[in-house]
Each structure stands twice: as C-alpha cells, then as structure tokens.
C-alpha cells in the first residue's frame, strides 16, 4: 500500500512536470522559438526547493500552500490509475467520484486562505478572479459528471471505468464530454481561461508573494493536480487505461488537445469566461443530461 502510494505520487509528479515542460516547448515552437529543454520544469522546481524564503506573513501564509498541496495529493490518490487492477489504486476503494470532486476545490480554498493573509492587492485580485472563474467551471463539469453517474448507475470511479468496456463514454455521451472538456481546459489554467495568474496584469496573481520553497510547493502541487485532472478525464470518458503505456498515450492525447487550444485562443477576461462557461458548456451539459 505504502509503496503503491509512493509510486503513484512519483508518477504524478514526473508526468505533471514532463507535460508542463512539453507545454512550454510546444508553445515555444508555436511562437517560432526553440524553447527550453523538456526537463526545464524539474530544474525550476528543484532550484526553488533549494532557495531561501525570506518572507513571513504569519502561519496562515505558510499553511495555504500546504493545504493546496494536500488537496492535490488527495485528489490524485483517490483516482485509480489503471483499469480493474490491484496496483496503483491508492485510496480509491475508500472513496468515490464525489470525494474527488470535493478534494478538487480544496486547492483553491487553501490558496485563498494563504493569499488572503499577506494583503498584497495583486494576490487578492488573482484569488477573486480564480474563485469567480471556478463558479463558472464547476457548473458544466458537475452537470456532466452527474450525467455520467446517472448513466452508469454508480459514483465509483472504478465501476464507471469498467462500464465502458464496449463503448467509451466519449462516444456514448459526446455532449457531456464536450461540456466537461471545456471546463477541464479551464481547470488546467491555460488560455483562454488563464486570467488568474496573468503575469502582465496581476503580476502572477495568487503566487505574487510566494518565493523559494513555497513557490516550489505551489508549482509541484499544480503539476500533480494537472496530472490528476488528466487522469480523471481519461477514467471518466476514455475508458481508463489497461497498462501504463495506455495511460501515457491517453493522457498525452488529452493534454495535447489542451495545449493546442491554449495556443490558439487569446485570454478571456473573468466576466467573459464566466459568461461563456455559463452559456455554452452549461447548456451543452444540460442537453447532454437529457439524453442520458
């Protein structure tokens, strides 16, 4: 069990950062540059872990990133990596989709608590943008997930994966997939929904006062968390993975889709993205729900 969890975390950490490195690399090619090496994000994270932290705004400031990190770790540990296997399942026997959805909002909450304690206006601005966007993101995602739960008659992720033996949910419920995919793009924090940490507007937003080890923790948890989200989408709509190669291929395809969308579209403002998320994906999700 312990070894299982350790391997799961290491896999999530490495793939999260590898994908992030690829994201930077592919975006660089789109800009007509060479871009950094694929392992650049590892270098950044290790360097930041060896850096000093010279700021202090009370204990809540330090607790914020830790709450975020625990949210990300718990999310990834409650999602089984492989189809009907005994290994790489973490705690997923003890919880279901609802628990995962609950842990997914723990991160933004921890972030808000940590950022709220330092009083930097840019941080507060980033958090307000983030939480407002979250309202927009959750609506279509939850409707789509509820649709899936009704369709498969269970909230257990492993059973939802098993129920897709013949047809993947992406084929059986395409409308739900489209709605969930759009909010997944937002959860990934890439364009067009990257208004939270916009460097030129709010000076990297919530992370504005974090430096050194706490920034490293924030970056690592976001890498792990983005892998968890890829994993959840694969499990819910692409029938899960039979082995590790399958897992890598499926998450990579989803990730590439997110990268290309991110590179093509510009940034929406907060109100535009909430407007968009409430109008288009939510309506798609509701229509999809009717067909379930």
């Amino acid at each position, binding site marked *: 069990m312990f070894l299982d969890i350790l391997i799961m975390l290491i896999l999530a950490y490495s793939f999260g950062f590898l994908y992030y490195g690829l994201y930077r690399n592919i975006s660089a090619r789109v800009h007509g*540059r060479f871009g950094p090496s694929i392992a650049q994000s590892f*270098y950044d994270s290790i360097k930041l872990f060896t850096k000093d932290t010279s700021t202090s705004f009370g204990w809540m400031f330090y607790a914020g990133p830790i709450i975020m990190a625990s949210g990300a770790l718990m999310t990834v540990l409650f999602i089984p990596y492989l189809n009907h296997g005994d290994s790489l399942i973490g705690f997923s026997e003890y919880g279901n989709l609802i628990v995962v959805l609950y842990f997914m909002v723990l991160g933004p909450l921890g972030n808000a608590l940590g950022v709220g304690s330092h009083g930097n206006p840019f941080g507060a601005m980033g958090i307000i943008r983030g939480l407002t966007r979250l309202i927009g993101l959750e609506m279509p995602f939850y409707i789509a997930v509820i649709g899936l739960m009704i369709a498969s008659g269970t909230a257990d992720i492993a059973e939802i994966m098993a129920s897709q033996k013949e047809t993947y949910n992406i084929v059986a419920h395409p409308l739900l997939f489209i709605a969930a995919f759009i909010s997944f793009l937002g959860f990934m924090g890439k364009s067009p929904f990257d208004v939270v940490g916009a*460097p030129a507007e709010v000076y*990297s937003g919530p992370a504005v006062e974090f*430096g050194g080890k706490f920034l490293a923790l924030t970056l690592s948890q976001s890498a792990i968390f983005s892998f968890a989200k890829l994993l959840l989408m694969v499990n819910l709509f692409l029938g899960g993975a039979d082995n590790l190669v399958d897992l890598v291929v499926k998450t990579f395809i989803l990730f590439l889709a997110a990268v290309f969308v991110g590179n093509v579209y510009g940034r929406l403002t907060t109100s535009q993205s909430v407007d968009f998320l409430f109008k288009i994906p939510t309506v798609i999700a509701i229509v999809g729900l009717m067909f379930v």
Partner: protein
Amino acid sequence: MQEGFVSYINDQKDMAQASLEADTEGIKNTQTVIQKAINWFRARSMFVVAYGTGCGAIEMPPVFTSRYDIERLGVVGVATPRQADIMIVSGYCSLKTLKRVIRTYEQMSEPKYVIALGSCAINGGMYWDSYNTIKKLDDYIGVDMFVTGCMPRPEALIEGFVKLQDRIKNNNIEPGYIKYKEDYQFYRANQERLFGKNIAPAFIEDYTGMDI
C-alpha cells in the same frame, strides 16, 4: 619606458591570473557532490526580474522573445522580486529609481544575482556628470556581472547570462549578495550618503543581524 610599462602590465596580468586560479582552487575543493548538483540546477534555471531603469531596457524584450529566445538557456522572466534569482538593472539609475532598485534587491530571496547592463550602470556612462544619477551601481548593491556597451546588444546580454551560469556552476567567485551581507556597512553608508536616513525597510537589518 615603453618596455618597462609592458612588462609591468604583464606582471599585473600574471598576478591577477595567479590570484584567480588560487581562489578557484580553494573554493572548488570544498564543494561536495550535492552542492555541485544544487549549483548546476541553479545555473540551469534562472528567474529574472528585469528592472528597466534606462534606455538599455529596450534591448531586453528581444532577448526574452522569439528572436533571441533566452528561454532555451533556462532563463525566464518573472513578475515579482519574491520569485526572482536575477535582477537586471538596465542603465542609468536616477536617485529616485535607485531607492526602488535597492528595495527590490532586498526583497529577493537568496541566492540572488545582479546584472548591470550598460555603461551607465557600470561607471556612469554618458551620464557621468549628471546631477541626479548615480555612477557606479556596485557601490549600492552587490553586482555580479557587468555587461558593457551603450547600449549592449542582446548577444552581449546573453553572453553575460552564460558567464554568470558558468560562475554559479563552478562557484568560483564570491556572489554579490554575500559581499552585500558581509560589507553591509559599506553599502549602507553609500546609500545613506544619498538618501540620509529615509530609506531601508527594517527587515534587512534584522536579517543581517546588525545594529544600525
């Protein structure tokens, strides 16, 4: 006379070389494997806060964007000094700006490095007799790398970064922030000469553990 001068210069060069090598040896021997690895990572990943003080600022955007693309060396721009490892001060500093430069420098967490870009930041450049700019940035904060030129080409700035990376990797020259901490009184006196007592957030005094 001429010959004497040349040999004098050569002597000076030899001495400088010798002292450099001696230094290098001394520090290198004390580096453990872990420290070497850490230094390697530090050299490979640099977060830069680009403080565009003078006209040299106009040469920084090409360095960070498609044309010269310094991200391939692991150098990226960040928005806040809290996250930064490197500060570029690009050109002349007026007194008003210098205050902010010092403040920004002190907010960066260690290890931190400074690149002074352009003649103005090195010796005053064409502003050497101006009434409201400083001449030598190195008197006020610990500068690690000087990139000469008025204004320096992007290639020069990239070369500065590469040299700084070598230095961090080999750890053979004392970084500016350590000098700043050790000789804080010197820097502080220079700062006070310009600003009187009306500078400095209190935390720098706490963290150097000095009574001022």
